């Protein structure tokens, strides 16, 4: 995700300090990966340098000076360009679950146990999301819909992989018993 563009998007409705920007970013888009303050201030400096944001006011206090940033006209143009440009479909990289299942199969461990464990965790999260989708505010609902759709895709894969492994292991057993019956 483009952090500079996201910050521009958050600055557009109302000028903000770095601190409030970070808080809003974390609440809306951070998930488990919050922005670091250093990254926020460095990004705001670059946006200012590039003429996409400007310092509206510098307020002195006990600590360091607090700068309030606003988006510029060029910033709005840049933001609109970013918003309306579809993102590339990147090459799909297999997730950690796929790696774990593969390594379990390669090492003779139980891949089904890996899938079972992950299914339980996914279902727990889906149940939490179901509550948010029913009662959260609109952006929370959208975020929950988005996460739900991705978890469902994972779960579809978990069930497909489970069924495939069952079939594979049945074929393997049949092959072994056929071999065993040969003189």
């Amino acid at each position, binding site marked *: 995700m483009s952090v500079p563009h996201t910050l521009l998007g958050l600055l557009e409705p109302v000028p903000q300090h770095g601190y409030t920007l970070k808080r809003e970013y974390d609440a809306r888009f951070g998930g488990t990966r919050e922005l670091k303050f250093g990254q926020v201030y460095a990004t705001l400096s670059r946006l200012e340098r590039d003429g996409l944001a400007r310092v509206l006011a510098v307020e002195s206090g006990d600590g360091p000076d607090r700068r309030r940033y606003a988006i510029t006209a060029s910033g709005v143009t840049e933001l609109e360009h970013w918003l309306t440009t579809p993102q590339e479909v990147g090459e799909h990289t297999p997730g950690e679950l796929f790696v774990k299942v593969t390594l379990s199969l390669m090492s003779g461990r139980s891949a089904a146990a890996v899938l079972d464990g992950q*299914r*339980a965790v996914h*279902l727990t999260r889906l149940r939490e999301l179901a509550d948010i989708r029913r009662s959260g505010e609109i952006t929370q609902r959208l975020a929950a819909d988005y996460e739900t759709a991705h978890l469902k895709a994972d*779960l579809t894969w978990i069930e497909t992989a489970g069924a495939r492994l069952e079939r594979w292991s049945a074929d393997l057993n049949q092959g072994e018993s056929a071999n065993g019956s040969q003189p």
Partner: protein
Amino acid sequence: MTARLVATGLRLAFGATQALDGIDLHVGAGEIVAVMGPSGSGKSTLMHCLAGILRPDSGEVHFDGVRLDNQNERKRDAIRLRQFGFVFQFGDLVPELTLLENVALPLQLLGFRRSVAEHRARALLDRLEVADAADRTAAAASGGQVQRAAVARALVHQPSVVFADEPTGALDTVTGELVLDAFVDLARENGSSVVLVTHAADVAAVSNREVVLRDGRVAVAAVDRT
């Protein structure tokens, strides 16, 4: 949580196939339990044993503290009619009857007057947003309408337990979600327990906990997280 259905050591073979191979399961009052697992893992067979449709070779099924599996056919029929509701993948309504008549049927079999039964049935069809199609025959209604009516039929007599076998398996994703949500909301309002058989994990997500079967045995028995 009070146990409503308790199964212990259920075993059932069809010829050389051991469909159930020693299953223990309990379903609490008002609890929704998803029974998952690949095709042929024993999900539907387990459901039929829990509902008293099939008798296990060994093991026991207790409903509200009373042993169900050793009752005679007539007593099991009576318990099913009064205490249980069923939703199947393709609705399984009577095609010649209207949706309204189908939904009113369980109440009429229980001795309710037709007018009372149809009044309740219409209210439920209304809740499920399918009242407009109430007077259409099941044969002429759409898959989504039939499935909503099937949900209504399963719940109209406020059963203790609803058994649902892939209840949204024949519907598109969006319709399936709507029907499933309505089903779960109504079952919770009723305080009915639900045994939800599904191979789809996203469907199982509406449950309080899931039980995963593999080769007729319980592979995963999750704890209730609610």
